[in-house]
């Protein structure tokens, strides 16, 4: 196929593109790339089941209290072994009453905390 060939050849070239000698031979050379990417929490459900706010936003409590400072970054996400995720702030309060995952009722144990 035609595009197979097209795709093959640049691969060979790019592996050697660091060589200054070869570089000048190329028709196109990449000078700079400004990439754009968006990050989000790697979660299955986008809404925190405890406060019903999207996990990407600060939890309800943080939105109400920290109106003026930039501590929103602190309002991170926590994952349990059951792979369910919530706002860390919400879960901290939850486990004081009940050490089970609000969604699946398994005993709550932390898998990881977002950063």
């Amino acid at each position, binding site marked *: 196929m035609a595009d197979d060939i*097209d795709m093959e*050849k640049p691969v060979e070239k790019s592996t050697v593109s660091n060589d200054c000698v070869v570089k000048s031979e190329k028709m196109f050379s990449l*000078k700079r790339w400004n990439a754009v990417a968006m*990050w989000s929490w790697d979660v299955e459900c986008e809404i925190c089941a405890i406060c019903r706010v999207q996990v990407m936003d600060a939890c309800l409590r943080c939105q109400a209290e920290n*109106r003026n400072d930039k501590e929103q970054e602190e309002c991170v996400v926590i994952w349990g072994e059951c792979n369910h995720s919530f706002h860390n702030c919400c879960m901290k309060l939850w486990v004081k009453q009940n050490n089970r995952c609000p969604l699946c009722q398994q005993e709550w144990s932390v898998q990881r905390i977002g950063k």
Partner: protein
Amino acid sequence: MSLKPKRVDFVTTWADLKETVKGVVTLGNVPHTVWYNRFSDVYSLCVAYPEPLAEKLYQETKKFLEEHVKSLLIQVNGSSEEQLLTVYYTLWQQYSQGMDYLQKLYSYLNTQHIKKQKATDAELLYGTLSYESPEQMKEIGELGLDLWKKYMIEPLKADLLRLLLGAVHCDRTGQSLYNEKSSTIQGVIQSFVSVEEFKKKNTLELYETVFEVPFLEATGDYYRQEASRLLQECTISLYMEKVLQRRDEEDLRSRKFLHPSSYGKVRSECEQRMVADHLAAIQNECLTMVQLEFQQDLRNSYALLKSIQGGLSVLVSHFMEHVKQQGLRAVVNQTGDNIAAQFVDGMLGVYSKYKEMTNNVFANDQQFTSALDMACASVVNHRFNANQPCKSPELLAKYCDSLLRKSSKGGSDTDIDDKLAQCIAVFKYIDDKDVYQRFYARLMAKRLIQQQSQSMDAEEAMINRLKQACGFEYTNKLHRVFTDVSLSSDLNNKFSNYLQNKDRIELGLNFYIYVLMASAWPYTLNTPTAFAVPQELERSVQRFEDFYRLQFNGRKLTWLHHWSQGELKLNYLKKRYIITMQTFQMAILLMFENTDSLTCKEMMEATKLNSDYFQKTVQSLIDSKLLAVAGDTGEVFEPSTVISLNMDYSYKRTKFRITAAVHRETVQETEQTHASVEEDRKLYLQATIVRIMKSRKILRHNVLIQEVLSQSKARFAPSISLIKKCVETLIDKQYLERTPNSTDEYSYVA
């Protein structure tokens, strides 16, 4: 001299005393020794043995003064008409001065005998005692003044008034008919006040009844005639000029002649006769004045109408209507590329012009400033087409973008800063602030990630201005966007260190990345098209993802290739060109490394772009002459269309960008923005309604509507029907219910 009471012969003592009293009241020469002897005579009489003679002394003194005043009256009456005021005034000066002395001479009598009988202040204020009871004894000074009032002013008052009014009239008409100096007139008028100074209450009673009331009447008559005369003679414009002049003259005259309590009364009498009585005539002229913007006339009419109850209303409403018309004329029918700038400049022009006018002409009167605000608001929020949303928020946002964007036009930082500050003036009038926010956020995001921002300081200053105008919540996401940009800068530094330390990895290009926080940026995670990253970039993507995973926990990255861009160097032409372009454009060009022509099918399969983006991207490259299409293809590229590299490309500059074409704001995007604003509004209103109902529990429909309107005012002006719709939705969702016994009441369902 002994203080002991002794027998005193009243007749001889009084005869001596009487001589001295006569000397005192006529301001004759009274030697010191005589004065002291008479002083003790008064004492001796008051404490005389066997019986104190105070009462008798008082009666005799009174009788003497009575006769003295009567003889003075004869003297006044004897003088000619022209001299009467002067004579009266001279005698009054003498007499009142004399009374001062006499008061002192009789001080023993005053303090020991009369004060004791007199009612105290408290009794006067609260008691039922009548101060004027005839048998009441007065202190000597007071007695003298009272006698003057009784035997001088009473019989003379008609004459005095006639002469005073005559004199003032002469002063008004500018005739020098009267011989009296103005100090005489003032003195005579003042004597009406002075004779009653001893009184504890209503000290101005005599002045008011004898002089002020008839004077005001005469003033009114005079200016009534004057007004109708002037109205016949001149235009309203000139009339106002004259009236102001007359009023000011009369003010000065009041100060020259009258007691301070009369100043205001005279002024308002003038205004009544010359302005209020002819209000309609002046107000009829207002429309023309406003429309032709006769500053002097407007200033005059403001000065005149201000003090009349309700006088300004007509002028205010004409002014408002005029500003509105001027504003609409300035912003309507704009065409061309820079509609946004035309709109804002036009609006600001009108605003600052009339702001200055309210300042200079209307003394920043609150009625006019609020009329200006209302007029500007109605211009800014005017819909030229009733079916379309108001364009102003969008235009203003675009204008701000054009200021903050790097441009060849330049302009100093402070210049831009000033212009942005002015934008806030327009911004404050916008009802749909949420629409502005949407547009502004989109444009700002684009500026930042395409590195097209003129200055980060200016960006931040603008966000802070918006925050000041609308509060923290309004700019919350803008701030977040802004911090992401600086966080990204740190991240890039860390990334290059990471690459250095890890086997000195080279990416083969200058890599920079913006990592945006989802939900804060006005972009969704759904990328609009699939895309196969070219091999040349693949490595950068891989390395960065590895690095990012080490840096953070629980995050995933979504690459927004449609927003990224790069610089590609073209080595196959006569000149070397460095072109800034979209990643998609780069991907397409890179395929021509080893071949001069490709079919669209081949290119689409390699890049995996969807047809929409593919068409747009290829078209942009053909438009910029980098690629060429064989033959004429019409609107769309067929899979079989052959595209080839233009080997003869040339351009006057060697470094430039061709990114704009793909990212030009489309009509659909604008519509999308409006649609998403509409969705946000529904949620916002629902949240507001729930919040209100949660705190109030039960509320009538109208009250609820009012509450919602006032709470959402800062963001947008919701239509009543939208609020109703939201209430319905909430009833369906069982947040609210209608109360059973009333048709227009809701209650909150906990």
